[in-house]
């Protein structure tokens, strides 16, 4: 693959875990690399995320940590399940549970949006995605905003694995109609999935859409607080809402970057990557490539064209994207239709200690919800 283009932005060289990892920031190059799975592989457990996650989990996440064609076979097992949020019935349920979280807070006290609103909404929405009782969310909420580590960096991925083992034990004994039973009962290449494979699917279902969805919810709340004129326009012009959310996802880029491993080495924009060396694909920077997105730091709710890569690109594009889009759409619809206003009392965003961090993620967001006119 030729990754050399005359106008392409050069990769960054990022020191990480004892390696200097080339980080792709150019949109065109990123799209090429993300589909060239033979040279830039995902078939390496724990090392697709950067930093790698050997200390956070004991299993290979599925389907993401496989390459085609095996990846496609694994993905096919759960693809239809992850598309269920497209249905009107599913979205009604999402709207109900979001409404139940929002309503008691309208015209009430200020609250911490990340922990007290976004985390419960994400966890409750996940119960819908997995088809389990809403009460399960209480345990998930207790894990905090990231399933693998606390805000102070303490690892607690074992709590998730213990939980998943309990769920697959139950599903294997009792059956049922939830995500765990679906996986336990499905046939793959003429056999049942092993426990390791089951845990791999379960692990990704919990880890993949956790902080990413929470950051998206807070990003939406923060943006409409800072730009009430955008919320007014979306209230008046509902046909703009779907595109506005795509722009929000571009602007936030909740998955900043992800890795690939080069089994045989590679040359990336003139940089030599050694065999088994890693490269990073920086979706957030590609989403700000000024050659593709004019005025890229501006969130323009009517931006067009908008071929963003916030949900990745190529065969490994985000399997949870349907759910994330449906959830954010339900939240935006409620904000519009109930004529709510969001006021920020205190906020801090992730500072940018290096060029590859995403500056649009809140670390603290204290807000108040108002009904219009109060």
């Amino acid at each position: 693959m030729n990754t050399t283009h005359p106008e392409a932005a050069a990769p960054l060289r990022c020191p990480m875990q004892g390696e200097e990892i080339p980080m792709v920031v150019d949109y065109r190059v990123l799209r090429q690399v993300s589909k060239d799975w033979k040279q830039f592989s995902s078939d390496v457990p724990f090392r697709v995320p950067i930093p790698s996650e050997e200390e956070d989990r004991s299993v290979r996440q599925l389907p993401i940590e496989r390459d085609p064609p095996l990846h496609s076979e694994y993905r096919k097992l759960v693809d239809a399940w992850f598309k269920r949020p497209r249905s009107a019935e599913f979205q009604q349920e999402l709207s109900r549970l979001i409404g139940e979280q929002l309503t008691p807070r309208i015209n009430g006290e200020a609250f911490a949006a990340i922990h007290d609103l976004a985390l419960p909404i994400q966890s409750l929405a996940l119960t819908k995605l997995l088809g389990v009782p809403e009460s399960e969310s209480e345990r998930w909420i207790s894990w905090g905003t990231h399933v693998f580590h606390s805000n102070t960096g303490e690892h607690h991925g074992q709590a998730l694995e213990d939980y998943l083992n309990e769920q697959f034990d139950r599903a294997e004994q009792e059956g049922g109609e939830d995500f765990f039973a679906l996986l336990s009962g499905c046939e793959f290449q003429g056999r049942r999935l092993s426990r390791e494979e089951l845990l791999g699917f379960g692990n990704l279902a919990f880890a993949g859409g956790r902080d990413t969805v929470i950051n998206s919810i807070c990003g939406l709340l923060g943006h409409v607080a800072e730009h009430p004129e955008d919320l007014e326009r979306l209230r008046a012009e509902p046909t703009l809402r779907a595109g506005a959310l795509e722009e929000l996802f571009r602007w936030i880029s909740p998955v900043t970057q992800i890795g690939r491993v080069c089994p045989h080495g590679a040359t990336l924009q003139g940089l030599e990557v050694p065999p088994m060396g890693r490269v990073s694909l920086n979706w957030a920077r590609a989403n700000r490539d000024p050659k593709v997105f004019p005025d890229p730091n501006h969130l323009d709710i009517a931006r067009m064209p908008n071929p963003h890569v916030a949900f990745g690109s190529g065969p490994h594009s985000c399997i949870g994207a349907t759910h994330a889009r449906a959830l954010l759409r339900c939240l935006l619809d409620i904000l519009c239709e109930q004529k709510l206003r969001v006021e920020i009392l205190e906020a801090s965003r992730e500072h940018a200690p290096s060029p590859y961090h995403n500056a649009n993620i809140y670390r603290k967001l204290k807000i108040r919800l108002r009904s219009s006119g109060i």
Partner: protein
Amino acid sequence: MASVTFITPEQKRITINHAVGSLMEIATHHDVEGIEGACGGVCSCATCHVKIPAAWQEKVGTASDGEKAHFDFMDNAAENSRLCCQIEMSEALDGLEVEVAGEEG
């Protein structure tokens, strides 16, 4: 009422009668394989890529800038590529046939 036929990469023909809405909405409503419409029809995802046979290109029209922004970066895009979320079904398109592009690579 108008009908439209989707031809999958495996040459399976799926004809939908009384078709109303965008081609993406029609395809996803009938579970046409290879048409996902992930972004909901706002030209942000390119998961509803089709190719228009020569006989229909004039009536269907050419790709917008929003569509072309994707095609510039897709290996399987061609002159007759369209994102079918941008094609509204109408009586004038009765009998339309489109080829589902399928995945890249």
